[in-house]
């Protein structure tokens, strides 16, 4: 194992995930919220890679590919939804998305 211990990677991954959650809750622009979800998924990828490296296995690395592929599919659909919404109401602020009461 290299000089950097696994706990460093995990702490970084936890911080990234936490930042993603905070941004998801507090940001108001749909695209930014979307990016925060991507940040969370990348935190997951980092954790998988770190564990795989620490164990000397390939499994964790393979999982990362699954996550990347699925995240790409999700992004495609997500952006299509955002475009549809933008066409119908000319705004990307979630506070204007309030037709249905929460």
């Amino acid at each position, binding site marked *: 194992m290299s000089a950097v211990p696994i706990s460093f990677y*995990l702490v970084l*991954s936890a911080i990234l*995930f936490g930042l*993603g959650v905070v941004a*998801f809750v507090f940001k108001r622009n*749909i695209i930014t*919220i*979307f990016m925060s*979800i991507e940040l*969370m*998924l990348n*935190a*997951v990828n980092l*954790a*998988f890679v*770190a*564990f795989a490296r620490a*164990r000397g*296995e390939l*499994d*964790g690395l393979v*999982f990362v590919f*699954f*996550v990347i592929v*699925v995240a790409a*599919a*999700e992004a495609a*659909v*997500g952006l*299509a*939804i*955002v475009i*549809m*919404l933008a066409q*119908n*109401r000319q705004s990307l602020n979630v506070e204007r*998305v309030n*037709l*249905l*009461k*929460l």
Partner: protein
Amino acid sequence: MNPFVGDQLANLHRLAPEVVLSVFGILVMIADPFVGAARKRVLGWVAFAGAVLALASVHIANHFPGPAYSDLIRVDSFSMFAHVIILVAVALAILGSLDYLDQQHIQRGEYYALVLFAAAGMGILAGANELVTAFVGLEMSSIASYVLVGFRRRSPASNEASLKYFLLGSFATAFFLYGVAMIYGATGTTRIDAVQAALEKIITADQHEPALAVLSLALIFVGLGFKVVVAPFQVYAPDVYEGAPTPVTALLASAPKAATFALMIRIFYVAFSPLTGLWFWLICVVAVLTMLVGNLAALVQTNVKRMLAYSSIAHAGYILVAFAASTSLGVAAVLFYLAAYIFMKVGAFLIVTHLGQQDEKRVSIQDYSGLASKQPVVAACFSLFLLSLLGLPATGGFLGKFFAFQSALIVQRRSLTLLVVIAAINSVIGAYYYLRVIITMYFQAPSRDYTPSRVAPAVAIALAIAAAGTLYLGILPSRVLDLAQAAADSLFSH
């Protein structure tokens, strides 16, 4: 035969329902450009045939029990039972969509293809024995549903529901995945039965639960809690159910719930069984919250779709009561409940679909006034579904609740008894809002400006099946109950 080829063939047979669903989904996509705009309904019937054939092919898969594709998928009676529930709900939802899409002028081929792909994802969820496979199944069903929810492209409500569902759904998936990463770190595997063995080993060696595994339990619960809609993760559901096209709501409220509950059972009862002491309390607290939030919020709704959305939240709470029992009887009760639940819920939403009219204008409870004098059979069917949701004897909903509560009481644990008492009180609260709709239909003067359209044949067939299922499970439950028990036992026999 070459043993490798034989092996692959057996694997294909084990995955037969998913293969059939995917093939028909692709078929619909390919045929779509060659079918004229006026004849798109044909694609709906093709999709319906796909769902029915997939239901039949469950029988094929059932002949090849065991692990498929190096144990990524498990074919056992548990997974097969869940498959049947999911596919029945999907078939009914397709029948309910045919005329709805014509009415809203959105009759398109991809709608049916997406429904079939979502169904394939749910099937994978029900059978997954590997958390990353489960993730792929979860995303297959979710991504298709995001699109389906937004299928009324010109309707701002549908856009909004789609966006909310997409953002919160992806958020939940990220939690689920982080949980999977943590359990991989704690045990070095993501295979559900291997996780169980590894956790047991670690706990006997260290005499305490590994922190990463506890964290993973919490994260996975958050992720799946969003998908089965339990409090405090329920906020998005009423909005999404209201904004989505009603047949899609019928689908969302039934099939993915059943599939995700199946996955949750596999994860909690098998992988996390060494941590039962921890998740028992989590499930208890969440069950109480879910029932209360669902029932109390449903009391004040004036929109039928929203009311039924909150009612489905309350039902997730009742299911959690049986879930908390943490016995094989509890699993059987959950499965039976889900079987009864899909008939009454899909049935109720199909009635809302039928009465909605163009642009879904007629969805408030007032619009239903005097329905009994205009369309007595529709009113009678809706009453049956509502009474079953309420839990009146001789309906599937009653026996579902009965078995759920019984499985919790039989454990003889004080906390579970208390939970059942709270659940019983909640059922009484539920009576108010279900009966209110029935009273409106039967005892209020019909509104003059509204005549409901004729019941289309496809909808009539779907309603008849749903009503028959509700009554069958309420009057002759023993056969399905035996199957549910066998399914629950198969889960523990590995």
